[in-house]
């Protein structure tokens, strides 16, 4: 259904879809800021900096993906930072006790995250409580439970199997000083996989459909509750994986690990063009948003003129500027784009294009 609907859309709009425009704009903004920083900071453009960003962006990338997954269905998950903390701590504890290998560790982290995500999912999807309230509650609940569990003690790097401390440095191949590290590849793989699934698979299109118009989706007979539930489980699982990455990066885990990351994940998703109102945005966009914010963070640290006190404010200003620029550019494209669509509608009749816009979500129900 999805395929044929897309085929039905006029050729001219196919490559200039709004999400492609958003992604291209953001990519351009990232490129411009890198150039600006290259002027400000000596020795900035190097393979080393590429390695820094690609290693440090992993946690936020996974969280931006987790966030996007629930935002698409017009929900939000403010508990991801706490899930990272719990998953990192419990996985660390598990590794300290058993000395298992990476695959088991990743699985433990993902399962811990998914279980916590399912708590959110149950309350939101079947409890009918707004996601922002549920996850605000679990944000503090998960963290408090972790504080009680940890009794203020940290997971110590010395107790972990030695592979954990080196995990971030595992490099698959190096091109001219640019290292492609395993952790980055995992993050990219997750993003691309989800992008594909959300764009092509039935449940993916349905999640967008719920976000576009929840009551219409329910009216159309979509299993909205179970889709929302599973999107929270997925979000939790991704946050759990991010927790494992956090463990590998920090080595020592305290009960505050990951605190504040929820806001960063929302920022990354929104900067990446994911509409906070649901129904639109892409995983690739969220990924680019994470890259943008992380690049700014890592670069600002190296600009001595921006003092410690101003850095956060400066980061906020730059993010706002990026979003405004993105909105202005997008509106221009949108105007042109809707004019084209109107023209197309006049020539082919309203229903064909209209259905194409709705994409596979509504269409899929017929087969279900």
């Amino acid at each position, binding site marked *: 259904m999805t395929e044929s609907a897309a085929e039905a859309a006029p050729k001219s709009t196919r490559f200039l879809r709004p999400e492609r425009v958003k992604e291209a704009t953001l990519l351009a903004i990232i490129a411009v800021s890198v150039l600006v920083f290259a002027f400000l900071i000596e020795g900035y453009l190097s393979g080393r*900096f590429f390695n820094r960003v690609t290693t440090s962006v992993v946690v936020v990338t996974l969280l931006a993906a987790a966030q996007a997954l629930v935002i698409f269905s017009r929900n939000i998950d403010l508990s991801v930072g706490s899930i990272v903390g719990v998953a990192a701590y419990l996985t660390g504890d598990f590794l300290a006790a058993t000395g298992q290998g990476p695959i088991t560790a990743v699985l433990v982290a993902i399962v811990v995250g998914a279980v916590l995500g399912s708590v959110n999912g149950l309350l939101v999807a079947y409890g009918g409580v707004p996601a922002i309230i549920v996850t605000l509650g679990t944000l503090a609940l998960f963290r408090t439970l972790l504080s009680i569990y940890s009794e203020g003690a*940290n997971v110590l790097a010395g107790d972990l199997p030695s592979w954990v401390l080196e995990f971030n440095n595992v490099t698959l191949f190096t091109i001219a000083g640019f290292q492609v590290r395993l952790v980055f590849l995992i993050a990219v793989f997750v993003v691309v996989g989800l992008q594909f699934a959300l764009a092509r698979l039935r449940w993916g299109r349905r999640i967008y459909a719920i976000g576009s118009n929840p009551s219409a989706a329910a009216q159309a007979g979509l299993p909205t509750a179970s889709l929302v539930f599973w999107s929270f489980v997925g979000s939790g699982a991704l946050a759990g994986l991010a927790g494992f990455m956090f463990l590998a990066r920090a080595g020592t885990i305290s009960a505050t690990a990951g605190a504040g990351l*929820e806001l960063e994940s929302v920022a990354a998703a929104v900067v990446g063009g994911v509409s906070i109102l649901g129904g639109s945005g892409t995983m690739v966009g969220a990924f680019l948003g994470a890259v943008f914010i992380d690049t700014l963070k890592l670069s600002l640290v190296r600009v001595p003129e921006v003092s410690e006190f101003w850095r956060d404010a400066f980061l906020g200003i730059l993010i706002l500027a990026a979003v405004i620029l993105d909105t202005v550019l997008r509106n221009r494209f949108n105007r042109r784009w809707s004019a084209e669509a109107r023209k197309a509608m006049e020539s082919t009749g309203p229903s064909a294009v209209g259905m194409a816009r709705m994409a596979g979500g509504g269409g899929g129900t017929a087969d279900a």
Partner: protein
Amino acid sequence: MTANKRRSRVLGPLVVVALILAACGGDSGDTTTTAGEATTTAAEATTTVVAETTTSAAAETTTSAAAGGEAVEITAGDSITATFLPKCTNIAVFPQANSGAEEAAAELGSDPAEFVGPADCGDTTGQIEFMTNAVTQGVDAIMLSNNSGDQLDAPAQAAADAGIPVVTWDSPIPSATGESVFVAQVDFDETGQVMAEMARTILGDDGGEFAILSATPDAANQNAWIAAMEEVLATPEFENLVLVETVYGNDVAEDSVTAALGLVDSHPDLELIMAPTTVGIVAAAQAMTQEGLCETIKVSGLGLPEEMAPYVESGCAPEFALWSFVDLGYLAYYVAYGIATEQIVAEEGATFVAGRMGEYEITADPTRDAGLRVLMGPFSKYNAENPGT
């Protein structure tokens, strides 16, 4: 739809419970830090007004107890209520300090102090609320590790006005406003000396470039140690050691890793990162380890032996130092108990015996313009020969 509604009636209260628990939780570090900085100037404005009344108020409250002369042995008496307020509850050293305070309370036959504070050390304004609450509750004593610069002046003064002794430990109130006495872990000047010496040991006689990775720009003890170290560095003996930059990791692991790697990238000739914070030092050591930089850039500072063990072994952190936080909490409780039960007076020259730790004297604090101090000491240095674990 009706089925959904019925379910929500069951689950609704669960969410309420979750939200109530939420009130006990902490909040996120990064965002609150900037908010705290914004209010600093306002707090400073009130400081100057109240500071003048401090010393007289502290002196007036106590006349009965013996001052000077022979040491007063602090003994078990009435049970007191007290608040033990650390910079935050989630950094390993603070529960350690609290366990020392509990040990002292047990010896003195008193109820243990309430251990409360912001969950997150990046939260520099959270302590204000806890201080204010303690005063409102009318506890008999407050033991505080200040993480809020001058912002606690007003609530500390309110405590002093209510006759509640405020014993600071680990990190004092810079202006000493409302503070009875500061239980210093080590002499702050000695911290500077020890850090400079460790830097010289690691960098060798030919010296080199090093940088400091601190906690928050508001942490009074961090700033005092760094200032003391800079003074030592100015002497000819240490002229080969070049301090290139001081950065802050907010005592948050992720921020500290980012800050440490930022230092590495900004200063190609960097040979050492000195982190006078237990969070920063371990984050810096981990950052160097995973980037394979341990050969060229060493890490030192103040760290917990159990957290630093793998990095001492790998040679990433050849030497670092610390004192016992258990002892610090123990001593702080003895001092607070002694003052609250009027066995000792918070004034210069008073001497006392604090349980297993022996005799101490209250002196003027040489590291601040005002305020009294009890000096605990000494430092322990940890390295491959003495890993401390």
